[in-house]
Every structure is written in structure tokens, then in C-alpha cells.
């Protein structure tokens, strides 16, 4: 089976189970301060790591290419409170332009 289908189906099932469990599990199990404190930080650290991996990694190699310029431009756009779609398209546009003119990989 295509590993992508495995990931698509398994992650969907687990995501639903997690949401559903919040509706059936008694609150006292999950509302301990330790658990709450950790789970509130999980999205922060994972998203930060994902930013880095998607910008610098090519497989197991560190690459410094047009993606960095895209990310820097995304930071500028976010500082100016640009909406999500503008940030994403802006980053792609800068990377695309730099490649088109042969300035970076």
C-alpha cells in the first residue's frame, strides 16, 4: 500500500480519536496542570521545528537556497500583519523570482 495512504488514513483516524476522546473522557484526567502545561507547548515547538526543517533540510542535508529568502520575506510580511495567504504566496513569489533570475538555487 502507498505509504501516503497509510499516513492519510492513520493520521485521520487518530485525529478523530483525539477530538472524540475530549468529549467522552472525564475532564479530571487531562486537566492536570502538568499535562496542560506540556500540551499547550507542543504546537509551538513542533511548528517551530517544522519551519526549520521545511526551510533548510533536503533529506538529511542542510541546504541554503531560495527557501531562506522566502522565509525572510514571510517574516517581514507577518511583521506587517499580512494574512496567511499573502504570507504563503509572498514567500513562494520571492523564491520563484530569485530562481528565475538565477540568483540562488
Amino acid at each position, binding site marked *: 500500500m502507498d505509504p*501516503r495512504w497509510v499516513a492519510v488514513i492513520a*493520521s485521520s483516524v487518530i485525529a478523530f480519536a483525539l*477530538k472524540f476522546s475530549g468529549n467522552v473522557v472525564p475532564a479530571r484526567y487531562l486537566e492536570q496542570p502538568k499535562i496542560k502545561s506540556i500540551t499547550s507547548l507542543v504546537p509551538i515547538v513542533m511548528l517551530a521545528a517544522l519551519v526549520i526543517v521545511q526551510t533548510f533540510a533536503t533529506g538529511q542535508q542542510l541546504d541554503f537556497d531560495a527557501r531562506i529568502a522566502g522565509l525572510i520575506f514571510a517574516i517581514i510580511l507577518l511583521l506587517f500583519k499580512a494574512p496567511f495567504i499573502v504570507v504563503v504566496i509572498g514567500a513562494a513569489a520571492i523564491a520563484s523570482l530569485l530562481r528565475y533570475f538565477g540568483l540562488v538555487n
Partner: protein
Amino acid sequence: MTRNAIGVGLATGLYGISFGALAVTSGFSFAQAQVLSLGLFSGASQFAVVGIMGAGGGALAAIATSSLLGIRNGLYALSLARVLKLSGIKKVFASQITIDESTAMSVANVDDEELSRWAFWATGISVFVFWNIATAIGAIGASLITDPKSFGLDAAVGAAFLALLWPRLINKQIRYIALSAALLAIILIPVVRPGIPVLASVLIAVIIGLRNSGSK
């Protein structure tokens, strides 16, 4: 309120287009992109699955990352239960649309229980509908693109994660935590298999989380 809910749905839908496009350019099929939007239905987790596997990571790393990111939705459901007062089949439907947006809109109206409930359902359904339509549009559009790199679409993935992270960086400690996770990831990229640097970042959440709750 209904207008707000539709507004949030439309805005979220716009980035559903980028999800559909990035999924297809990362090697996922149209059907796989659509099933992710219907079934997984949580932006950050969906971007994680296609981002990790598109970058050469395995299915297991993708599933683990997606699921760790999805834990927060379970906690949302938990805190919403008091307001929503669900029973039977409604629990199933409510679970599926328990995401950042529907929770935020419900919590924003918590003073009026009726309105809070309405905000949850209206926002959740609106985001679900627009997000799925947008995914299809993005996926079809991207299947016409033959060289995603020349369109800078690889740069768009990192930007998408940054834009998801940005509004969560609400104080100095959280910014430092994000920064240390970023540093750990860059150190780990050359030494461990793709997908592992992101999972390893959870260690930082555990260490800091335990310390934070201990000092209170």
C-alpha cells in the same frame, strides 16, 4: 454571528487552497489531499503530513507529528464540553469540527451560552465546507504545475508553518521556547532521519512544561 462564521470560513478556505496545492506538489494525489481535508481536518496536522512525506520522511513520522499536533483539539473538545452539552450522534459531528477556529469563536462568546454554541457549530461547519472546497481547487490548480520549485512552492511550506506559529508567539518565554526548538531542529537535521527533528522538539515542550507547572 453567522456572518462572522462565514467570514472565518472564507478566510480559512483561502489557505485551504495553499494546502491543496502543496499536497499535490509534495507528491500526494488529489484524492489523498481531499481525504486529509475531510478526515484529518486540522490545518497544522495536514501541512505536517504532506510536508514531512514530501521531504522524504516516513509514514510513521508523519502520523506521529500529525497526532502530537492534534492533541490540542482533544483539549479543546474537553473545555467545550461544558458549553456544548452534547449527546449521542452530535458528539461525533462536533468532534470532527473541533478545531482552532470553531473553539476560538465559541470561547469568544462564552458569556452567552446559546450564542457560544451557535458560534461553535456555525464556524466549524463553515470552515469545514470552505476548507474542503478550497483544497479541491488548490489540488486541481497545482496538478497543472509541472515544476513546483520554479514557482517557489517549496518555500511556501516553511512560510505556511511560520504563519501558523506566529499568532501563538504571545510572550517572551514562548518565543524563546520556539527558538530553542528551531535550534534543536537545525542541529538534528544532518544527524537523524527526516521527520525525527520535528518529533524531537516535543522533548523541549515536556521539559519546559514540567518545569513551568512545578514552579506554580
